[in-house]
């Protein structure tokens, strides 16, 4: 890992279009500012790890998942307080053979 010392107000350039600035240091807290193109996602690591974990849990073999989904689906269809969000995305259906 590259280790650099910076003072408040000093910057780092990462590649041609990412800029990192140390805004403030108070005790154990460091305030950083990041400028990056809009297609570069910037997240606090602990949040990203939580979302990774949530996705992996959702995608993994969850015992009883399709049953639980079918149950939840029936409940949703019974309620119908408002029309469901329109879904115009094409999806694949089970092949009939």
């Amino acid at each position, binding site marked *: 890992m590259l280790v650099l010392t910076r003072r408040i107000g000093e910057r780092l350039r990462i590649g041609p279009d990412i800029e990192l600035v140390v805004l403030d240091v108070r005790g154990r807290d460091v305030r950083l500012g990041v400028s990056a193109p809009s297609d570069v996602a910037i997240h606090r690591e602990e949040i990203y790890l939580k979302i990774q974990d949530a996705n992996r849990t959702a995608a993994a073999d969850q015992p009883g998942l399709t049953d639980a989904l079918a149950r939840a689906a029936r409940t949703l269809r019974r309620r119908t307080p408002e029309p469901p*969000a329109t*879904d115009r995305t094409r*999806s694949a259906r089970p092949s009939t053979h």
Partner: protein
Amino acid sequence: MTPLDAALVYRSPKLGDFSYGTEDVIRFPQGIAGYEQLRQFVLLARDECAPFMFLAALDRPDVALPLVPVAPATLDVRPSRAALASLPTEAPITYYAVASIRPNGGEIGVNLRAPIVINPETRLGCQVILPDETLPIAAPLPA
């Protein structure tokens, strides 16, 4: 759909076989959290699970995320957030929450913090992590 398009079959060990066409493939240029290397997905629908669907990875048939369409209002997604996701804001974008079984009780919970966003016209998608830290990762289904 031409017979050639219909020839493609997606075999999911969990969900069964699905026929799909190349026009059904959705590209996630940045992958999704936890599966950053997977770029191509198809949406699989099973009647008994509607409105839930499954976002299934073309290259990893064992990876299928249950999704449920949500209204953008539920998510507090504003056009600027959609712009962050580099999707044209005027496009009819569809939003989905990832669903999973909640740890206690075995019922379905949805992730309102990190919706899956798909542009059905360009067939591009991404997962947006919203900055609002109060949004739950495993919320009960909206009442």
